[in-house]
């Protein structure tokens, strides 16, 4: 395939080439919408069938970490959008700076997620043999708020009285929690790889007002991953907080 500068042979103009690439990314994102949509649907159906277990499971998540991560991710979307703008107006140095900021914020998000996952392992809330929703309220750990924990115990006891199978239904909640946040995190890791590639290109001064398609297209992907989290956060963390 012959190519003149950044323009591939099958296109008439750079603008046409960019519109084609953008449309292609959007079509990929449509498949992603339906992919995550299926998971949200599964979650909704099971949540309405096992609302007791899902409520208890949801309330074990750390709302401060979850909300903090939401802020971090939305900030990374802002820096990504600013990277696109920098390329469009020809501020070559800023492109790299904003891309690095985006990658940094994405890494912070994944780090916080890792802390949250570790907590769930410590509390015996990972689906499998050791799973026990009664474990954490009866085994306080360093730094736990004992008053909060006794409230949690009361809640779990009450739930056990109504739904004796809560340890099974709770595993359903945590399977979906790990599945959905895990897939979301996997998308972030892919996005981080794409950002590294963009950062390399920006150091070489590749992105200009005439040619910035890669930044724009990766930006679309990054914002989509942000949107998935915008739905995951309230559905996983906030569904049963009102007392």
């Amino acid at each position, binding site marked *: 395939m012959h190519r003149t500068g950044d323009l591939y042979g099958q296109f008439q103009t750079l603008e046409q080439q960019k519109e084609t690439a953008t449309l292609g990314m959007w079509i990929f994102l449509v498949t992603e919408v339906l992919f995550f949509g299926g998971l949200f649907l599964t979650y909704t159906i099971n949540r309405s069938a096992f609302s007791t277990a899902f409520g208890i499971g949801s309330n074990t998540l750390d709302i401060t970490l979850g909300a903090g991560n*939401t802020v971090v991710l939305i900030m990374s979307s802002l820096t990504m*959008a600013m990277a696109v703008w920098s390329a469009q107006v020809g501020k070559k140095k800023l492109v790299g700076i904003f891309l690095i900021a985006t990658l940094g914020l994405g890494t912070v998000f994944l780090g916080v997620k890792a802390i949250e996952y570790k907590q769930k392992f410590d509390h015996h809330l990972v689906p499998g043999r050791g799973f026990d929703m009664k474990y954490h309220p009866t085994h306080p750990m360093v730094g736990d708020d004992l008053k909060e924990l006794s409230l949690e115990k009361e809640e779990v006891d009450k739930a056990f009285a109504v739904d004796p199978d809560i340890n099974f239904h709770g595993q359903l909640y945590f399977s979906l929690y790990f599945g959905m946040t895990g897939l979301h995190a996997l998308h972030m890791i892919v996005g981080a790889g794409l950002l590294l590639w963009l950062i390399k290109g920006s150091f070489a001064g590749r992105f200009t007002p005439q040619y910035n398609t890669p930044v724009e297209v990766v930006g679309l992907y990054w914002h989509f991953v942000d949107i998935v989290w915008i739905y995951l956060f309230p559905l996983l963390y906030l569904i*049963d907080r009102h007392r």
Partner: protein
Amino acid sequence: MSEHIVSPKIYIVIFASLMLGTGITVWAAFQNFHQFNIVIALVIATIKATLVVLYFMHARYSPKRTQLVIVCSVFWLVIMLALTLSDYDTRSRDVRLAAPQVSHRA
């Protein structure tokens, strides 16, 4: 058609709105609106998602062709959600996923 450049000012305004939305959704989660808690959470999330699509993802300034693709994706998602949920919701009780129901918060 020349490219539309969205200014940083708009990006900042959208970012601030998204932050505000996050704040409201966390606040609303702790209020007791009964069955409307989930509705409120989803409405706020959808407003936030729409802002991201329109401005961060430039959908508002995209060619009609791209906008059509976006609308189609939402349309198909709604078909999947609406038909599946109405199926689950209208089955007779004995074939439903059965589990004891309780509000564990007194």
